[in-house]
């Protein structure tokens, strides 16, 4: 009995000097792993054009029916993405989404990627619908904003030629 108490105190004392396993969230944040599936991001090419071509394959794949895509025609004067079409509306309902990452697998242009943001909270249900503006990656410079005016006959291919995708 007495030895048990001593043993217990020894444990307590030892833990006292150990590095704590807890972290002070939200001041301190634990980095997520590379494959973490967090909030979606719509990617852009280096020249600022959107990767998404509005094909709605992600919406068809989504098991939770969380994605809504509407496409419109690109022109060379007002170009959002390579190819003929771009997504004029792109919405994800973050309350429906189950973060499975199937949309990522379905996308032919690797436009939609599940990022590392896990801090999603809303004040009402309507706020859970993320629009295209909220999902699109920010551009590095103002001249890379979409729509762009592009020379004719350059961006005809909507799905880029791809290397073997990694990870």
């Amino acid at each position, binding site marked *: 009995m007495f030895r048990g108490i001593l043993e217990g105190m020894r444990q307590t004392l030892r833990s006292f000097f150990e590095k704590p396993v807890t972290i002070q969230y939200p001041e301190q944040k634990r980095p997520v792993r590379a494959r973490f599936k967090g909030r979606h991001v719509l990617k852009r090419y280096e020249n600022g054009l959107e990767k998404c071509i509005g094909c709605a394959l992600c919406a068809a794949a989504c*098991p939770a029916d969380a994605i809504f895509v509407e496409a419109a025609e690109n022109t060379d004067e007002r170009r959002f993405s390579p190819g003929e079409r771009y997504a004029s509306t792109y919405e994800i309902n973050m309350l429906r989404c189950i973060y499975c*990452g199937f949309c990522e697998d379905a996308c032919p242009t690797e436009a939609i990627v599940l990022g590392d943001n896990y801090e999603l909270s809303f004040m009402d249900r309507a706020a859970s619908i993320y629009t295209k503006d909220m999902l699109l990656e920010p551009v590095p410079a103002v001249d890379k904003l979409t729509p762009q005016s592009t020379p004719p006959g350059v961006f005809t291919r909507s799905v880029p030629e791809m290397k073997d995708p990694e990870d």
Partner: protein
Amino acid sequence: MEKQDSNGKFIVPIGPQHPALKEPGHFEFAVEGEIVTGAAVRLGYVHRGIEKGAEARNWTQNIYLLERVCGICSHIHATAYTLGVEKLANVVAPPRAQAIRTLVAELERIHSHLLWLGVAAHEGGFDTLFMFSWRDRETVMDLLEMITGNRVHYSTNILGGVKIDLDDEKITAIRKGLDFLEERTHHYLKVINTDETFLGRTRDVGTMSRQQAEELGAVGPTARASGVPRDLRVEAPYAGYHEFPVRLITATEGDLHARFVVRMNECLDCYRVIREILDRLPGGELATRVPRRIPEGETISRVEAPRGELVYFIKSTGGDKPDRIKVRTPSLCNWGTVTSVAVGHKLADMPMLLAGIDPCFSCNDRMVRVNRPDQSQTWSWENLRQYGIEYYR
């Protein structure tokens, strides 16, 4: 579940919202003084209509849906389903995929058993052990996040294989995590075998004989703690268990203590199997092609979830959606053992007895007939739909 006769006795109702378990379930214990003389369970509070939902989704989407039947043993649900669909489509996933499936399944088992150890200790008023085991469980959760990208719903399986691969860096990290966990598990085994207060709450509590376990149809560690040699990984190996066999771990006492020992020893065996998989990880492809339409047919797919035998029935009519999917989860089989073993114990032992089978409520709430003549009712789909629309208006 049969309601036991409790005429003229004092009945203590517990739940559906209650302080002990974190999931909703309603229990009625008939007591005489402190001693329980009858017990009844009522389930169904978290019925989500998943089976029906599965009929409206295509074969691939259902992996993600069915993975969400359970938040703890999610991978095993997806595995049971994919194995069943692969059987129907007559394809076999490549060996590397099978090995990775097995690896994730075993990591999941460790995570589930450590979680359970914490919960059970908490129910027994042993919160130190709860904190310790959950702290160590973070190790395996981190490993799972590193391998698959998520802490609970791993999305590892696809039809015909797996999505994820392992590289040397990940393998080293897994080995390091396992070394730490193995040391901790030995420590826990020592604690549950020697700590007097803990033994006082577990030894000879809720004893179930082998015969009882067999009659009540107990599964998983609950049955194995009573000496029933029942483990699908040994009896009917699936996925990678042909190549990486596991040991059958049983105990004979059948009390709560035996369940602790069986689960912890199973963890130790998990470490061994995972190391073996990492040592001899087969090379080659990660997936094979599976047609979009699955040929007509029916199949039963059985796997060993952390809590016991999990059964999937899958029926295809040759389309791109399943015709019927039926899930039978292990928790449902084990409820009978609680209600019959509870009799004769103190009311204070009930939380531990309930936790002893590692119940998962959202797992087992599919369709439950409530056998109460005055209250039971049958709803048609139209009524149910109308009710839902009104409710959410």
